[in-house]
């Protein structure tokens, strides 16, 4: 029923607007990144040559000109901007300067591992955070409730690299249950996924506990209880559904942050993924690679938030995507 209402022509118009908005956001992200990377006070030519291990000191002017030409750096800034933008639109991300390979190829090679890690981490965070919040709202033993309410604060405060190293020490080196490094098999996903899930789960739990508590204080809960429904039923069927909206918004933001979290997890666990590559690209000042990763991360963020906006009506029919009548 809801799904039928969801796909009306006004929704289609809304969707088109949002997609246009997303394209503009991506273009802005690209432009700002380009600006930051190229308008830095340092000479981008020398930076890129340095990233490619070519020493400017050692080059004659003719060699320098040839080197600039090889990386397309002899073109005017505007030409470079539009060339790269055009390439991006065609799906051609250019050539990584530090890794000597097409950026598209590198991304294709490393994305699967990061996606698997990110998806596992988010799934884990949802289960952990959701369970914790649900229990915190349900439990009526005062001290236990306090403990459950405080736990997320602990999770948010723990630095991920510390959690990662601790997990490695205990579960890889002491107990030998999981590998400490690498991407071999599903077991190698467990520790890094937990590392990434801890802060995410904690944030989700904080928001969900709060909104569950708010909902449980609403008069409709009392009405439902008065009608003889069990506490368990009311919390699960009525309160939870209403409490989910803020959590869903947060989830969108947290999903977008997966790339940044992956930087830490992939570095600590020596997993060759996009996060680790992002860190290396920034250190090596590998402009094409940094740009591609930033645009990719922005695209993921934009798409996920668009999807979440579209899912809202499923949880709360009062929200529609019909444009306002002016």
């Amino acid at each position, binding site marked *: 029923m809801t799904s039928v209402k969801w796909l009306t022509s006004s929704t289609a118009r809304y969707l088109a607007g949002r997609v246009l908005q997303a394209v503009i956001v991506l273009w802005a992200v690209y432009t700002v990144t380009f600006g930051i990377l190229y308008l830095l006070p340092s000479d981008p030519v020398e930076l890129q040559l340095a990233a490619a*291990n070519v020493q400017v000191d050692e080059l004659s002017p003719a060699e320098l000109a040839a080197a600039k030409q090889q990386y397309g750096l002899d073109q005017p800034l505007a030409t470079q901007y539009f060339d790269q933008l055009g390439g991006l639109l065609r799906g051609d991300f250019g050539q990584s300067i530090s890794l*000597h390979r097409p950026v598209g190829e590198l991304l294709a090679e490393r994305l699967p591992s990061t996606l698997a890690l990110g998806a596992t981490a988010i799934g884990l965070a949802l289960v952990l955070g959701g369970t914790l919040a649900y229990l915190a709202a349900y439990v009526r033993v005062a001290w236990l409730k306090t403990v459950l309410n405080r736990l997320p604060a602990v999770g948010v405060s723990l630095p991920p690299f510390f959690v990662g190293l601790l997990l490695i020490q205990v579960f890889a080196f002491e107990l030998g249950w999981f590998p400490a490094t690498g991407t071999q098999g599903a077991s190698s996903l467990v520790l890094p996924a937990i590392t990434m899930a801890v802060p995410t789960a904690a944030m989700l739990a904080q928001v969900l506990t709060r909104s569950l508590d708010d909902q449980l204080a609403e008069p409709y809960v009392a009405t439902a209880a008065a009608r003889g429904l069990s506490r368990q039923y009311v919390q699960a069927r009525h309160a939870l559904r209403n409490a989910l909206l803020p959590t869903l918004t947060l989830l969108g933001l947290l999903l977008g942050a997966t790339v940044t979290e992956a930087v830490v997890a992939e570095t600590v666990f*020596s997993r*060759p993924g996009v996060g680790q590559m992002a860190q290396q690209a920034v250190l090596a000042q590998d402009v094409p690679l940094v740009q591609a990763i930033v645009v990719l991360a922005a695209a993921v963020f934009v798409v996920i938030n668009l999807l979440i906006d579209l899912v809202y009506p499923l949880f709360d029919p009062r929200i529609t995507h019909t444009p306002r009548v002016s």
Partner: protein
Amino acid sequence: MRYRRPLLALTALATLAACGGGADAANDGDGGNPVKGGTLRIAFWDDAQGCIDPNQVYWIESRSLNRQFADSLTDQDPETGKIVPWLAESWEVNDDATSYTFKLRDDVTFSDGTKFDAAAVKTAYDATHALGAKSLLGLTYTAGYKSTEVVDDYTVKVDFDQPNSAFLQASSTTTLAILSPETYRQTPEERCTGDNLVGTGAFTLDSYTAATEAKLSRRDGYAWPSELIENQGDAYLDAIEVSYIKEDSVRVGSLTSGAIDIAWPRLPISEADQKVIEATGAGIESRSLPGISSSYFPNVGAGKPLADVKVRQALQKSIDRKSYASTVFWDGYPVVSGPFDNTTPYATDSSGVLAYDPEGAKALLDEAGWTAGADGYRAKDGEPLTLTIPAQNTTPGDQLVQDQLKQVGIKVELNVLTLAQYQAAAADGDYDLLATYYTRADPSVLGSVLDSGVSQAGTAQLSQDPATKKEISGLFAEGLQDVAEDKRAGTYADLQKLILEQGVMFPLYERVQTAGVASKVHGFAWTSEAFLRANDIWISQ
């Protein structure tokens, strides 16, 4: 006539052996007879260059892998620095070091079956020279390269248009390794990816993913190692698997928990980690990287405090290198004794000039007119004696130097910069002291940092006054002309003395490579340039 270098006595080898720690536990001898089979798992710390082509690589860790699949014309004895035959059976050098004739082995093949011959050497040397600035090391190793001529099937003549007596050592490096002619049909970028790199080594490179992993496997029928290798036939190991683990604690834990067999970081393994490693029965292998020791180079430009030779000499005396080695590293860590690390051929022991003498330093500074003020720092005409050192991050070592110089009244400002800012500061001479080092088992390497006639870098252009520049350039040129062993030794001894006395360079510490090696690994060996030599390695079951 076959030209061979006489033995070089390296006085510092005793020191080196002293810091070997439990090396013997992991070495051959007590492990019984070598057995074939097994995979050696090595974890390095990083692979920032992301290239595995021996001709282009400068990254130390990659060169350790290069050595396993790519052979060179000559080899260098790690203990004496002597150059010995490898793919070349013998050689002749003309009197002014501009022409080298190599007689090649005729029984060598590349792993793709192609014959190794004079034409292959020509293809490889021409291609390496053509890399130009893409091969930072190749650029200096082949300085003045004119051509390689195929004299007959197994004789090549390499000509230079200027003397290059360091080329014989260069011919032993991984940078001048010979790959198959087919390999050079690829672009330099394609070669970097390692998809089709074919050499004559005891292993073949099966796969390489930059900054992720590398896999090598034994090549059967290998029969042409140099005399430096005990095992004259096929390697014992089936395969070598390499991973990169950035976190020290994870790398050490992986070794102690048996997930890897060798943990090989760039910076020396800390004393605490060494204890952890040794507690599991594993050993620590170590060797100083030959080449320029980790040093500061001054900016002697007009108006700079270091323009005055007395201030530079005072600075030389103000650094307590002994406590640097034992504080930043550990008791028994080799103390730097000259411009070169002690594994470099022709390195002289200049401990005398580098002795810690704060009173002497103070006297020199007083003479130079820098008088101590109320805050303990010295000043002259109202100007404080402040030295700026740019750095990309500050280490405990930097802070120790800061503190040591404070004792004599010199204020050190550590200027933490990003890579881009750092490069700009270095290029513009916006510093008083700049730190650098360079690896190569030949003293001519110092020229690429200090010879103003060759290098445009600040370390060469700004570190000497015009008169000293002339003298130093002259000595470097002489060193490259000298073919005779004793003459070369004399020239480089003069050079090292001059450099230290004039305060053109302030050595700080020896660069020691360490590797944690599991107890089941036997026969671990270093090459002369402190890379891995895997031919003799075997794993006990």
